[in-house]
Each structure stands twice: as structure tokens, then as C-alpha cells.
């Protein structure tokens, strides 16, 4: 692991010079035998890895129209080459989205296309060698699957689909990534990414109830496993104790309390994250998502609300219907599932919450669009609601809001640098450098508008920023949960 050094922020120099091999040695730790076997993957590199990898690639292509079309269609126009934050931050040409795709595409062409079989040198097809497998491991774990590149591709080629497929192939031949596979194992065994067992969770929630009571004098509940509650809240486990996440959880609780909505968390499904998406494993994704359905049925809830988590909202919004649907046992009068920001915005819009934005008068806030929310989901009824609704919520609880450079927000938002299963210290060098484009935009906003806080609605974004902000000379507590702002502005008990 190389040392993490923040590149100079500079003024917007959007495209770095190519530095070939710059990130070749930045690799995340590989999964150990027990991490692998817990998910049913081979424990170590299998002997016939080449055959198995090619076979798995073939199966994946047959099962995914996206993969098939995207492996065929790239015209090498280069429009995506300067769109990836990891390329912009590192200059390694293998981090250009098309070059990343080509690592897999070259092998696909070699084994599955006529041209690659007979004229490999002409079409840039390569045999699957150990070096190639190694490059896959390295560079497909330098992609946060943020899909920024796909926005600008004339064919809509989605590098995330390709990097997910590559990780699935790697898992199937026994070369998994420790960070993701260990976490998915914990979800199966204990119920959440952090490995927080039920008693500890209950303790934490009781502690939170006390804290809020001490601070506000109001009995805001943090219910767990309450049968018959109206809402099941599925939230990333970081919300249970890490800063700044936990203030977001307090915010959700205050919203539910104030709106008089009965809600509960579940110890069975005490985790919104579904890291199986990152490793491209459909089977694991179903298994992890299944817990939510089971918990909702067991608790007899009418609604499922998802807390502030980017990829979890993607899985819930876009994939649950396929993975664990239909969710027809839920109340059809509400979106199934619903995002916490939709809940809060709806309540604010009909005046169900009394708010005092002056509680946030000490802050000038900007908002970081999380890639999975911005580019893979929606909130509300209108296209783009996923961008408008969180901003509407912030504006109603906070008098001073500014946006960052428009080229770095909305569907063009830059990844925080830690998404897609890369939020691990073994990849710190990559995370710090990959945060560069966001840090440039934030630094500019600080200089121009004296921004003091950046709100986010994703646990990964929040953790990543807390870690990398200091590298760029910014305070780590600059990043806040949107629902922290909400929670601070809510006037409790004022509704009668």
C-alpha cells in the first residue's frame, strides 16, 4: 500500500497527463479463505481458473443484455476518458473508463468473438493470463461504480456493469476482495455490515433515547423490532454509532416522532447496505435483500422507508422489485419503498413539522449528490426529484444554501471517491486522490461562498469525506447528514 497523498487542488485543471502504471500497485487486500467460503466462493485461486473465468464470463454475457451490448458497442470515441474521478485524480490511463472496460473487453473478444479469435493483434484482443487477472483485480477495484462515465457515453455504456461482472468472475475463481466479502459475511451472520449484534444495537438505541431526552426533554423513541409499527426503517448501520451519521438517525427519529408516525428498526434487517451489488453477485444480492422482505412481513409493517444510503437506495428503488418483489403487502398509498427524504419533504410540504431554520444559522451549507442516488434512482414523482427533494429539505431547515459548480452536481456529480466497495484503508491512496474533483469544487465553494458544511445522504460519502477532508486542509466535521440539519431545526413537542 502506498502512502496517501492529496494531489494539489490547484485551479480546475481538468485533465491530467497520462501517468502509465501510476496506480498499478494500489491493491485492496484479498479475501481470506473463510471470507470466501462464507459466500460460497472458492477459498483460493482455483487450478482451472482460466477455464472457469472464461466460462463465467460467457454465462454473465448470456444473462445480461447490458453486458453483451456494452462489450460489443464501444466505438473508442474517448468521450468518457476524462470523466472518471479516479483518472482525474491519479492520471493512470487504466482508470479511464473505456480503458477499464477494455481489460475485460479484450478477453471477451479473444474468447467469444470471431475477430478476436482469428485476428487478436488487430482488434486488441488478449489471452486471459495471470497478468490480466491481476490487472482486473487492481483496476476493477479502482472503480467506484459511480456511473458518471455512462452519462457522457454516446452509447450509454455503463462501466459499473462491467466492473461488477469482473468482480463476480474474480470471486468465482477464488480471488475475492476482503473488504466487501467480509462485510457481506457479517450481514449473513449478524445482520449488519458492522457486526453489531442485537443486544448491542438495543443498547445503542436506548442510549440515544437518553441522549435526546437529556438534550431536549422530549421522549423521542428509537424502537427496535416493534410488531405492528407502520414504518420499517432500513438504514445503514453506520447510522447507529459513527459520526456524523448518528445525528442523521436522530433526525429521522425526530421526524417520525413529530409527525406521529409509528416506526421501528429491525434487528434482522439492521442494515440497508447491500454490498452484493458491488461484487456483482446476483445471488448474494437476492439473499441480502431477502432479509428486508422477511423482516417487513414478520413485523407486519405497512411501509418501508430507507435511510440515508446511496447504493442501498439504488438497490431498494431500482432492484427490489426484481430481487424480492412484488412488495404488494405494503400500503399502496405510499411509494414502495420510500426514501426518508421523501417522507420528510412530504411532511414539510403539508406543514406537519414545525421548523426553526435559525438553528442552522451558523452554517452555510452545500449538498453533495451521491452518485447512486443521482444517477440510479428517483425520489418523488418527477424525473430529477432525487436532486430536487434533498435540496428542498435542506432549504427548509437552513437559511444559507449554495450549490457547488454545476458541472460537479446533479447527474454530473463526482463520486466521493470511496463508493462501490472501496471504502477501505488499504485503498486510502486511491480514495484520497479520487476525491480530488469533489474537493476542487468544494474548495471553490468555500472560497467563493464561505461554505462551512457539506451535507450528504449516503453513509459511504459521509465516512469517506470525514476521512479525506483533512488531506485537503478542510475540517473533517464539515460533512453532515441532511437529517442532522433537519433534526436540529425541528421544534419538538410544538404540535398540539
Amino acid at each position: 500500500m502506498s502512502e496517501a497523498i492529496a494531489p494539489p487542488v490547484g485551479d480546475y485543471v481538468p485533465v491530467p497527463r497520462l501517468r502509465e502504471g501510476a496506480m498499478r500497485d494500489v491493491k485492496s487486500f484479498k479475501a481470506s479463505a473463510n471470507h470466501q467460503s462464507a459466500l460460497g466462493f472458492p477459498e483460493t485461486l482455483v487450478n482451472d481458473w482460466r477455464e472457469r473465468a472464461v466460462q463465467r464470463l460467457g454465462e454473465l454475457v448470456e444473462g445480461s443484455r447490458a453486458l453483451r451490448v456494452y462489450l460489443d458497442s464501444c466505438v473508442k470515441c474517448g468521450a468518457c476518458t476524462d470523466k472518471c474521478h479516479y483518472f482525474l485524480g491519479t492520471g493512470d490511463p487504466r482508470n479511464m473508463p473505456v480503458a477499464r472496460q477494455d481489460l475485460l473487453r479484450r478477453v471477451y473478444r479473444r474468447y467469444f468473438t470471431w475477430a478476436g479469435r482469428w485476428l487478436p493483434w488487430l482488434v486488441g484482443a488478449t489471452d486471459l493470463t495471470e497478468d490480466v487477472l491481476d490487472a482486473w483485480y487492481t483496476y476493477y477495484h479502482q472503480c467506484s461504480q459511480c456511473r458518471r462515465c455512462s452519462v457522457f457515453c454516446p452509447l450509454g455504456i455503463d462501466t459499473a456493469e462491467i466492473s461488477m461482472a469482473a468482480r463476480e468472475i474474480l470471486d468465482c475463481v477464488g480471488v475475492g476482495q476482503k473488504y466487501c466479502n467480509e462485510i457481506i459475511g457479517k450481514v449473513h451472520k449478524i445482520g449488519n455490515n458492522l457486526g453489531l449484534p442485537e443486544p448491542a444495537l438495543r443498547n445503542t438505541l436506548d442510549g440515544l433515547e437518553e441522549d435526546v431526552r437529556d438534550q431536549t426533554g422530549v421522549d423521542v423513541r428509537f424502537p427496535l423490532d416493534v410488531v405492528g409499527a407502520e414504518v420499517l426503517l432500513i438504514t445503514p448501520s453506520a447510522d447507529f454509532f459513527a459520526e456524523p451519521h448518528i445525528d442523521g438517525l436522530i433526525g429521522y427519529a425526530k421526524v417520525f416522532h413529530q409527525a406521529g408516525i409509528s416506526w421501528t428498526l429491525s434487528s434482522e434487517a439492521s442494515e440497508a447496505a447491500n454490498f452484493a451489488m458491488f461484487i456483482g453477485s446476483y445471488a448474494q444480492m437476492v439473499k441480502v435483500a431477502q432479509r428486508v422482505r422477511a423482516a417487513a412481513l414478520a413485523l407486519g409493517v405497512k411501509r418501508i422507508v430507507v435511510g440515508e444510503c446511496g447504493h442501498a437506495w439504488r438497490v431498494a428503488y431500482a432492484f427490489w422489485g426484481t430481487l424480492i418483489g412484488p412488495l404488494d403487502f405494503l400500503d399502496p398509498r405510499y411509494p414502495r419503498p420510500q426514501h426518508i427524504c421523501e417522507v420528510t419533504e412530504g411532511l414539510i410540504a403539508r406543514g406537519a413539522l414545525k421548523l426553526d431554520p435559525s438553528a442552522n444559522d451558523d452554517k452555510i451549507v452545500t449538498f453533495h449528490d451521491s452518485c447512486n442516488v443521482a444517477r440510479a434512482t428517483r425520489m418523488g414523482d418527477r424525473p430529477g426529484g432525487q436532486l430536487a427533494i434533498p435540496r428542498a429539505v435542506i432549504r427548509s431547515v437552513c437559511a444559507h444554501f449554495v450549490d457547488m459548480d454545476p458541472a460537479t452536481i446533479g447527474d454530473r456529480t463526482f463520486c466521493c471517491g470511496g463508493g462501490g466497495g472501496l471504502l477501505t484503508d488499504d485503498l486510502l491512496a486511491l480514495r484520497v486522490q479520487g476525491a480530488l474533483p469533489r474537493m476542487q469544487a468544494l474548495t471553490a465553494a468555500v472560497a467563493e461562498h464561505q461554505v462551512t458544511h457539506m451535507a450528504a445522504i449516503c453513509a459511504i460519502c459521509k465516512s469517506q469525506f470525514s476521512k479525506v477532508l483533512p488531506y485537503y486542509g478542510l475540517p473533517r466535521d464539515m460533512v453532515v447528514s441532511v437529517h442532522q440539519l433537519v433534526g436540529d431545526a425541528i421544534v419538538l413537542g410544538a404540535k398540539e
Partner: protein
Amino acid sequence: MTVETVIYAGLLYVAFVVLVGGLVYRVTLYALTPAPLRIPTMPAPRTRRGIAARMAREIMLFASLFRGDKWAWIWSYLFHMSLLLVLLQHLRYVLVPVPAWVRIISPWGSDAAFVLVVALAGLLGRRLLIARVRFITAPSDYLMLVLLLVIAVTGTLMRFVDRVNIVGFKAFILGVMALKLHALPFAPLIMVHVALVAALMLIFPFSKLLHAPGILFSPTRNQVDNSRLEAQGVGEPREVAAPVAAPQVSPRQL
């Protein structure tokens, strides 16, 4: 009947069969391959009609490319549009009688040929000069541009420098189409032109030229944003309600 006549007729038949057969095969594969998960790049339209508009913007205006890279857009847009005009103009060599609209656009088609050459030179120049693009370029990417460039240049030369026996050539083409061979007039320019066009047709279904049908099947662009049952019971119901699968299921079994 000359040897060239037979060779060229044979070449055109083979090229045609490979092009059509290859494309039908590929497109069928695209259509039959499942797309179990919703992955539209958001914000995406919520209706079929909206998707039609999105696809039209992509296909007719290259909207995403425009957002992504202005120079690439300029060269590529000029290339595709001039190619379209030139192809339409070529209808006059295969249709009897020549429809009025083909006559009308014919002069534009000839002008477009110049634009075509310039645009191809621009695309090639980009590929050679920009380090990022050079890095991702395989020999076949250069070759394809050179092939197109030679086709365009020979075509232009025939029309403006060395006028060839186009009447005799049209008779040959009509003969090929009617399965009754007419002699191919001997003219090196046109023979090079046609041979390379046949080569392009042969390459099409095996290369990145598949992006043409590919874009129609691109899930990030052609999927409707309807993966959630809408509030208040309004809006479209879900299209897919895949069975709740046992854990060890892979997407291809769905």
C-alpha cells in the same frame, strides 16, 4: 463475361449475406438476452413516449456525446450526417426509376462527400493527437477510419476528377440485384471503391460498428424509470415481477 464481373458479383453477394445475416443474428441475441435489473441512467423518462424522445435525441443528435466532448461530437456528427446524405444519394445507382427526392438531394450528397472526407480526417487526427484517445485505440480502430477515408476519397475522385462509366456500372449493379449478370465496366477507381465497401459490409457484424444497432438496446438509455410502484396507485404497474428466487439463482436463469 469477364472474370472481374464474376468476382465482384460474388463479393457483393457474400458481403450482403454476411451483413444482413450477421446483423440479424446479433440483434436477435441482443433482443433475447435478459435484462433483469433496471439500470437507466437517471434522471430518466417515466413513460414509453419519454423514452422514445430520449432515444431520438441520442440517435439523431448524439445528445450524450454532446455533453461529453464537443470536438468529438462535431467530427462524429458531421461524419454520420454526411454519410447518411451520401448513402441516400447513392440510391440513384440502385433504383430505377430514380425517385424525385433522390434527384433533389443528389447535389447535396455530392457536397456531403467533401464533408465526409474532412470529418474522417478530423476523427483520425483526434485519434492520433490526443494521448488519451491514442491510448485506447487498437489497430483496427485506425484501420476502420482509413478504410472509410479511402472509400470516401475514391468516391469523390470518381465524381469530380476522373468521371467513370456510371451508366455501365449501374447496369452491373442492377444485374447483380436481378441475379442476371451484366459486364462490370473496367474502371480501377470504382473497383477499389466497391471492393472496400464490400469489405466494410463484411466487417460490420464483427466489429464495433455494431454500435449502430447496439444503441437501440442500451439499457441505460432505453429503460423506462418505473421500477417502483407509484404512490396513490397512479402510474404504471411494474412490468416484471420476477419470482422470488432461491438464493443460488443467477440472472440468466430468470
